[in-house]
C-alpha cells in the first residue's frame, strides 16, 4: 500500500470534522472518495496534505508516518494536491502558475508533455492565471502538479462545474496518468464519471469511511450507493 490512513481525526478549531477515517490506496490505483456535501472528503485530503492544523491518527505514505508533518514536508515526500477551488494565482501568469510548484523528485512530466495533455495552456502562457476559463483553470491546476515528480496526486472534484467535453478530457487525462504510473486519490460527486476511471470507491459519511465498493461492482451496487449519496 502506498497510502494507509487509520483512525484519522481532524478538527477545525473546536469543530470535530473527521471521526476516524480508514482507507488504503495501492500503488498505481485510482481511488475515489464519494459522499454528500459536507461529508468530510476535502477535509480528508487536506489532512493527508498536512493542511489541517489539528489532526490525530495515522497517515502512512510509502511506510512513513505523515501525521505530524507540516504541509511543505508532506509535499516534499511526494504528495501533490489540486484543490477544489483550483487555487490559480491571479498575480501570476499562466506560465508562472504552471512552474510554481518546485520539483521534489525525478520522474515528473516535462512541460512539453503537460502541453500535449492540455494544448489550451500553451496558447495562453502570458495570460493572467485567473483570466482563463473554468476548464482551462482546472487543466492548469492539474498540469502544474504533474511536473513535480510527486507520486500520489490528491484531486479534489476536478470535474466540478465543467462542460461535458471537458469532463471527458479530464477523464482521459486521468486514465493516461494512471498508465504513466501515478497513484490518484480523487474526490468526486459525479459518480458516473468516477465509475469509468476508478479501481475502487470509498463512501464517506459524517467524517467516517462507511463502505468500499470495487470499481467493477459499482453498477451492481447502484442501489446502495444511491442511498449513501442521496441521489
Amino acid at each position, binding site marked *: 500500500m502506498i497510502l494507509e490512513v487509520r483512525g484519522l481525526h481532524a478538527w477545525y478549531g473546536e469543530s470535530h470534522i473527521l471521526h476516524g477515517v480508514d482507507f488504503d490506496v495501492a500503488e498505481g490505483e485510482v481511488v475515489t472518495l464519494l459522499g454528500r456535501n459536507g461529508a468530510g472528503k476535502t477535509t480528508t485530503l487536506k489532512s493527508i*496534505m*498536512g*493542511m489541517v492544523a489539528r489532526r490525530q491518527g495515522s497517515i502512512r505514505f510509502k511506510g512513513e508516518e505523515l501525521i505530524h508533518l*507540516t*504541509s*511543505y514536508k*508532506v*509535499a*516534499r515526500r511526494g504528495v*501533490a*494536491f489540486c*484543490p477544489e477551488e483550483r*487555487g490559480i*494565482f*491571479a*498575480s*501570476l501568469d499562466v506560465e*508562472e502558475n504552471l*512552474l*510554481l*510548484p*518546485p520539483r*521534489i523528485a525525478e520522474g515528473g512530466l516535462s512541460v512539453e508533455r503537460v502541453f500535449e495533455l492540455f494544448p489550451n495552456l500553451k496558447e495562453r502562457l502570458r495570460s493572467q492565471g485567473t483570466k482563463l476559463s473554468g476548464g482551462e483553470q482546472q487543466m492548469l491546476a492539474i498540469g502544474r*502538479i504533474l511536473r*513535480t515528480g510527486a507520486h500520489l496526486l490528491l484531486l479534489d472534484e476536478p470535474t466540478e462545474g465543467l462542460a461535458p467535453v471537458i469532463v471527458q478530457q479530464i477523464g482521459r487525462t486521468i486514465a493516461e496518468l494512471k498508465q504513466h504510473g501515478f497513484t490518484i486519490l480523487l474526490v468526486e460527486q459525479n459518480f458516473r464519471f468516477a465509475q469509468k476511471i476508478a479501481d475502487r470507491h470509498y463512501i464517506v459519511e459524517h467524517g467516517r469511511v462507511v463502505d468500499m465498493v470495487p470499481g467493477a461492482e459499482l453498477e451492481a451496487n447502484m442501489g446502495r450507493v444511491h442511498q449513501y449519496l442521496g441521489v
Partner: protein
Amino acid sequence: MTEIFGIPTQALFGQLLIGLINGSFYALLSLGLAVIFGLLNIINFAHGAQYMLGAFCAYFLLNKWGLGYWWALVIAPIAVGITGVIIERTMLKPLYKLDHLYGLLLTFGLALVIQGLFRNEFGSSGLPYPITKELTGGHNLGFMFLPTYRAWVIVASLAICLATWFMIERTRLGAYLRAATENPQLVQAFGINVPRMITLTYGFGVGLAALAGVMAGPIYQVSPQMGADLIIVVFAVVVIGGMGSIMGSIVTGFGLGVIEGLTKVFYPEASNTVIFIIMAIVLLIKPAGLFGTQK
C-alpha cells in the same frame, strides 16, 4: 542668470535635487513597507526606527572599528536585518493568529522603545557622518552644481528599487512571494517553506530600511529621531501609492519627493503639507491608492 517661470534655474534645480533625494528615501522606505505588508499583512511601524538603526550601525562601524561607508552599506543592512529576523520569529509570529492590529501595535511599541533607548544614550542632537572620500566633491553642470554624493544616493536607490521590483515581478523567487501573498496555505502545500519565507521577507524589508539609513547619514546626520520624522511622510506615501504595491511605492516615493521640492520653489508655505493634502485628495477619489487594488 537664466530663469524659468521667474525662478533662477539654480534654485529650481537645487530644489528638484533635494526633492529627488527625499524621494529616494521615501521610495526605499515605502518599498520595504510594501514588501512586508504584502506577505505579512502587517504595517511595520518600526520601519523608521530600523532606518535609524541602520544609520547608527554605520556610525558605530566607523567610530568604533574604523570600518567606512562601503563596509557599512553591506554590514548594516545585514545586521539590522538579522534583528528583524529575530523580532519576526520571537514577537510577530505568535501574533499572526490574531487581528492584524496587534502586529501594528507591537511594531509601534518597538519603535518607541528603540527610539527611547537611543535618545537616552545619545541625546537628540545629530551626530555627523562624513561623506566617504570617493564620493566627495561634485560637478558643475552649468545650470546647477551637482554634489557627487547626492547623485550617488539617487542612482543607488533607484537601482535598488528597480532590482527589488525585478526580483519580485520577474523571477521565480518573486513568483513564490506573490503566490504566498495570495494563498500561503496552498504555496506551502506545494513544498515551499512559507514560514521561513515570511521571516526572510521581514528581514529583507528591514534591511532595506537600514540601507536607506546608511545612505542618509552623510546627508541628514545620525540622530535618534531621524526615522520618526521621516516615517510619517513615508506612511502618507504608502497610502497614496496603494498599500502593498511595489511599483506604486517606487513611483510615488520619487514623484512625491519631486512635488514636495517644487512646492518649496513655487509656494514654500505649503511644502510641509503638500504630501498630506495629496493624501487626502487621493483617499477621497481612490481610497485604495493610485496603484492599489481594492481587496
